[in-house]
């Protein structure tokens, strides 16, 4: 279309097309806001966001193309499911949610540009989006400058806190410390070999892990720490090193395509869940969820452990309903066999937490949402129950799962209480 717009006629056609496309959804829906008298638009929206009498526009900013599409597709779908469920239940303050989707295309400057578009041109009420830390870092200054709100779903390295972000995944300490404590106690582990992909999240995570092992676990030490470039597919030399070091625990944060090579080559080198068990060893990972096992194949993963807050095999009512609803909405695509990992669940929390916050604040204004987020609960969370902390991260439980042949997890441990988020852990820097 951009080619034709230099001609007046083309411009007219374009304008008409936009006008019509803007009219169609409004005309098609007969939704009347039942609580409009109580929450008139002028009162709930004082900063010029796209909030109308009958609807509110939000943004969704993820990679639907490029490398990260593998991971972010689940988040996109989970957020849409939550939005649909909220709409079916009457919307937010009587307003139905409509979303504008922008594709970050796995490219961080594109994320920044699209964030600007959503906040400045579209004036969206809030944004659900990003996956990698790199994309979050790229959009953060824009959200802070334009005063937008971002619900960010991924477990990440911590060391960040913003008025304009709600982190619905776990920060580093919530995932790492519980996992290490468990393996130290359960497997009487004393020696640890740390392996990660070479970028900020694994390096920060391993730094925290090393400090915890050396200072807080009794008589324990790190016998090796290795990083491999992103996307590397050759782990044979590294595996030989691990064989020589004979650690009680192999602690890993390997991401993306490398994951598959790592597990296949472990198996080819004779290291399996069963062989480790026999030698009183274990492998604990921070990064292999159901999503990844789908590509790796359960036969290569069986018997290894992972530390997450959510597993698809959780049997609480919320999760059963969530998995069922997800499979129903996307039946054509997954034929009832959808695979959901930790981040997919965390993405699902975003719209619900936003709804609860807006209703508590009685307003869509960003400042009021930021101020009212503390203490917001979501009892319908598939992971159980979550609550927003004053630092905009979630109180949530930590769990350990053991990988099964069918690509799901047996949950072998669960923190008894919700774990307090602590993005700036003292003594772990």
């Amino acid at each position: 279309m951009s080619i034709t717009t230099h001609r007046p006629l083309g411009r007219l056609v374009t304008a008409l097309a936009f006008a019509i496309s803007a009219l169609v959804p409004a005309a098609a829906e007969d939704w009347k806001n039942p609580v409009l008298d109580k929450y008139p638009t002028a009162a709930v929206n004082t900063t010029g966001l796209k909030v109308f009498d009958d609807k509110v526009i939000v943004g969704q900013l993820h990679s639907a193309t490029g490398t990260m599409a593998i991971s972010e597709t689940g988040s996109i779908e989970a957020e849409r499911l939550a939005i649909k469920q909220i709409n079916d239940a009457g919307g937010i303050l009587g307003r139905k949610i409509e979303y504008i989707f922008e594709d970050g295309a796995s490219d961080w400057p594109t994320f920044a540009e699209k964030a600007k578009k959503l906040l400045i041109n579209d004036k969206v009420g809030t944004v659900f989006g990003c996956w990698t830390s790199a994309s979050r870092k790229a959009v953060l200054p824009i959200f802070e400058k334009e005063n937008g709100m971002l619900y960010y779903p991924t477990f990440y390295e911590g060391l960040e806190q913003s008025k304009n972000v709600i982190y619905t995944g776990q920060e580093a300490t919530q995932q790492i410390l519980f996992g290490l404590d468990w393996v130290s106690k359960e497997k009487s582990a004393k020696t640890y070999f740390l392996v990660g992909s070479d970028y900020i999240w694994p390096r920060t995570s391993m730094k925290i892990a090393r400090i915890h092992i050396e200072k807080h676990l009794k008589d324990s030490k790190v016998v090796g720490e290795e990083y491999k470039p992103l996307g590397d597919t050759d782990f044979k030399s590294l595996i030989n090193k691990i064989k020589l070091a004979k650690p009680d625990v192999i602690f890993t944060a390997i991401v993306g395509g490398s994951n598959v090579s790592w597990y296949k080559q472990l198996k080819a080198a004779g290291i399996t869940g069963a062989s480790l068990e026999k030698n009183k060893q274990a492998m604990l990972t921070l990064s292999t969820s159901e999503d990844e096992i789908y590509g790796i194949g359960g036969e290569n993963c069986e018997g290894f452990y992972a530390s997450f807050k959510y597993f698809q095999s959780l049997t609480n009512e919320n999760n059963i309903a969530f998995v069922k609803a997800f499979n129903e909405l996307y039946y054509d695509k997954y034929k009832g066999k959808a695979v959901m990992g930790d981040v997919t669940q965390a993405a699902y929390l975003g719209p619900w937490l936003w709804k609860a916050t807006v209703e508590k604040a009685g307003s869509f204004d960003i400042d009021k949402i930021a101020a009212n987020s503390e203490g917001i609960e979501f009892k319908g969370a598939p992971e159980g129950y979550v609550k927003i902390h004053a630092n905009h991260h979630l109180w949530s439980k930590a769990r350990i799962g053991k990988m099964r042949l069918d690509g799901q997890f047996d949950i072998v441990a669960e923190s008894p209480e919700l774990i307090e988020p602590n993005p700036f852990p003292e003594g772990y820097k």
Partner: protein
Amino acid sequence: MTKIALIALAGLCFADYTMDELKSVLIMQGFAGISQFSVFLLMALGLAIIFGQMGVINMAHGEFMTIGAYATVGTSILAEKFLPAGLFGWYFPLAVVVAFGVAYVVGWLTEYLMIRHLYQRPLDTLLATWGLSMILQETFRQTFGARETSATMPDWLMGSWQPKEGLDIPINGLFLLGVTIVMTALVYLMMYKSRWGLRVRATVLNRNMAGAVGINTKGTDRATFALGCGIAGIAGAAFTTIGSVSPTAGGLYIVDTFLVVVFGGAGSLVGTMLSAFGIAQAQSIIEFFLSGVLAKVLVLTSVIFILMIRPQGLIAQKIRK
């Protein structure tokens, strides 16, 4: 000499291990280097023909590997459905043939529709094939989904061969080595011992003269390019035994592939073999004694250094300028 030095070094580093354990690990480490060598050589073979012989900078080479990999996944799905259970284990050789066929046909079409118009403009070829690689990646994503998948491996390809306790030789590594040896021998025979290879080399050396003596240079170009792509397809099929299949999987290999071919000296099969061996061994030895990231840095630095001294690569073709 180096071997003794290595053992001495290993002795210093791992003094608290029994000789037996050390021997096992060193054997496994030696095999790790060899199997990395076979990965490098296998992926470089196709490019050695396309870039080395024809001079086409094919940035989409990695995507032809991906085509082969997806063909393998497809064959495994079909085999699971239609082959009797007892025969399923043997679908893999068939998958390799299918991978070659599919990649060959796509390569043939690519040459016909795109490459042949660009022989005189190497830089435009670079851009065009890069564009092609993006188009192919997005096509894979739309067709097969963005998630990583794997072909179901037959049992005989998984696990390890254990000649004794503590010594595990990966079977997929042995398989890769076998495929690489067979493919290298075939390429060598075709390029240097057959009439067809003679025609290819004649066309590359002097297109006009080759045409004048009655060689169909256009047909030769097309078949050569398609063959290079077909070999990439076989590499893709073989790589499903060690890695994953995703729309962008080919991109992971493309840099190393060019590195091996350029370092070896474009146009020389022996050079490609030497360079694959050198890079693979250096990388796996450094990685074992130091670290993976350091291995990449040191290897790339020395490759740059050597190329500065010998821009034509390890083994240069003798051409009268």
